[in-house]
């Protein structure tokens, strides 16, 4: 605006290469109080002086405060910063501010600025009140439990309707979601499970070789994969990949008022967004689990074949012997439960998210963290149940 550094001078202002420091002085003669300003008042220099309230101490209220700007060079909002200080000081001391001598533009801008100063209140100090905290946490927990339960009921009834072929969701959405959750995830599921199978075989091979029990590597890899690892690893991959995406997508829709638009039109959010997302996971995850088992066993076989004296037929036979069908059912059911957990929590977190860009990031992070921790915790519960039931 009033800069000259880039070779651009506002008309009416003198071009000077060297910047003079801004100066001011308050002259008080017989009821005439005059602030004499000099130098360049450019905000970029960063040396705009303050006008302390104390400098108008002792001036009787009602007297006027004038300016002398004859010596002033270039100015921009830097001058306004000082003038605003003076204006507030004058108002606090009940003086009459006479802006007549100021440049017209400056007095216009000064008129826009409020007369009273706003100092943000220092944040109230947080005192730790255990009972308040406990109560607040309990209420939050109960409220959360309520919303989760109602969402769960909606999802389960939705699933039931879907099984009966009477779901209110659109088939295209379901198909699109299944494509995102299933085939697109094959590569990462393959890589992870193959490596897990290979690692299990490697660890087992080193130990089992000591007892000449080489062929039992197949038992170890097969059981570990089918019972635990494949289901858990696939679920963790899906929590990071699909759960995070669901939360981010729904949180973004929240920010764009898309969710509001659905609600107003009367399309239940649960039917339109949540149900296809969760159903897609419920449909794909068990199959990804089975696929993961197969790929993992192949990984195990590759390591066993390379390190130990194992034949292909022997490995296959040993695996089939070691892993009964019930273990597959157990893993299959677990995968469905993980899918419900990941889909439900990530959609819930997305729906609960705030409306800003930062909130989308928070929602995605939280969905992934809750998904992964939830899957592992749920797996522990399944382990206990299996122990009790005797699978």
């Amino acid at each position, binding site marked *: *605006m*009033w*800069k000259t550094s*880039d070779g*651009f001078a*506002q*008309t009416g202002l003198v071009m000077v290469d060297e910047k003079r420091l801004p100066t001011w002085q308050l002259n008080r003669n017989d009821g005439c109080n005059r602030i004499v300003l000099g130098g360049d008042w450019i*905000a*970029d220099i*960063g040396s*705009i002086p303050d006008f302390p309230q104390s400098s108008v101490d002792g001036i009787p209220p009602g007297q006027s405060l004038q300016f002398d700007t004859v010596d002033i060079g270039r100015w*921009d*909002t*830097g001058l*306004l*910063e000082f003038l*605003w200080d003076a204006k507030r000081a004058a108002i606090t001391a009940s003086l009459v501010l006479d802006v007549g001598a100021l440049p*017209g*533009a*400056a007095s*216009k*801008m000064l*008129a*826009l*600025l*409020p007369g009273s100063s*706003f100092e*943000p209140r220092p944040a109230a100090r947080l005192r730790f009140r255990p009972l308040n905290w406990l109560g607040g946490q309990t209420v939050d927990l109960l409220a959360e439990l309520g919303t989760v339960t109602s969402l769960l009921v909606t999802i389960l009834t939705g699933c039931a309707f879907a099984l009966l072929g009477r779901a209110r969701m659109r088939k295209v959405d379901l198909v699109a979601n299944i494509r995102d959750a299933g085939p697109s995830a094959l590569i990462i599921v393959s890589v992870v499970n193959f490596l897990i199978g290979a690692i299990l075989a490697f660890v087992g091979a080193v130990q089992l070789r000591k007892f000449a029990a080489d062929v039992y590597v197949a038992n170890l890899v097969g059981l570990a994969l089918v019972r635990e690892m494949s289901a858990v690893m696939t679920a963790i991959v899906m929590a990071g990949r699909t759960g995070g995406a669901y939360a981010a997508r729904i949180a973004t829709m929240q920010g764009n008022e898309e969710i509001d638009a659905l609600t107003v039109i009367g399309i239940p959010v649960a039917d339109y967004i949540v149900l296809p997302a969760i159903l897609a996971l419920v449909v794909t995850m068990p199959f990804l689990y089975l696929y993961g088992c197969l790929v993992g066993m192949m990984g195990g076989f590759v390591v066993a074949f390379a390190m130990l004296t194992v034949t292909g037929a022997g490995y296959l036979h040993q695996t089939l012997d070691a892993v009964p069908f019930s273990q597959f059912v157990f893993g299959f059911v677990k995968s469905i439960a993980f899918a419900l957990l990941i889909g439900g929590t990530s959609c819930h977190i997305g729906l609960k998210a*705030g*409306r*800003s*860009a*930062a*909130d989308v990031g928070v929602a995605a992070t939280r969905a992934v963290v809750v998904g992964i921790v939830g899957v592992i915790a749920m797996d522990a519960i399944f382990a206990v149940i299996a122990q009790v039931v005797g699978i």
Partner: protein
Amino acid sequence: MSSADPRQAGRGEAALLSVRDLTLAFGSKVIQRDLSFDVQRGSIFAVMGGSGCGKSTVLQSMIGLLRPRAGSILVEGDDYWSGTDAHRAATGRRFGVLFQSAALWSGLTVGENVALPMQMFTALKAAAIRRSVKLKLGLVELDEAIDLAPSELSGGMRKRAGLARALALEPDILFFDEPSAGLDPITSRRLDDLILNLRDGLGATIVLVSHELPSLFAIADDGVFLDAQTKTAIAHGAPAALRDNCANTQVRAFMGRERLDDDSKATAA
């Protein structure tokens, strides 16, 4: 520079911003072609036209977001789009832009929104920046909102905060995209007054895209009227002058909020 171009010589040498034969397109879809106009220093220049005529696209091109397909945009005779990205960014720092939805960064407080450009492009110390931020927020009557998050502001406050951010680097040229869109008449009127005061007080040149007639008549003193059919400017001049004596009936009808003749017949039939 200016004497080399006969048209520019005719339309005043002091033009701060000149658009010359500008053609804008997305892919094969031409938005505007052969568009020329000058923005005089210290004026409030309005880019007008009906919905979908490409007003905002022209603005995007002027602020460096959309490269023109042909033609040039001259800032004090300096071709804005011909230089390197760094050159364009340096010129861009002389611009202040108020986006249609204010586009405040939601992760920062209102004060931090205004402070960020200063932190990045000036050597000022934190205290000086804080003081400057307060002043700029004070100018738009938002100094009390300095520590609030953008999400806690109303629509009008957000616009004003966006304006304070646009003022952060003491720009020569302020661009406003639909400044009064979504504001009630009183808030919109206050924003108009603020824009006038900023022009007079800071000596800034203002380019605004708008179709809010009351606000256009109140503040703009020059402008260009874009047309969606012919895809170029069909009238130049101040909004009030266009309303009263523009040769083009379509422009006159738009500015006077009248129905075009053939339209009214169609409705009657």
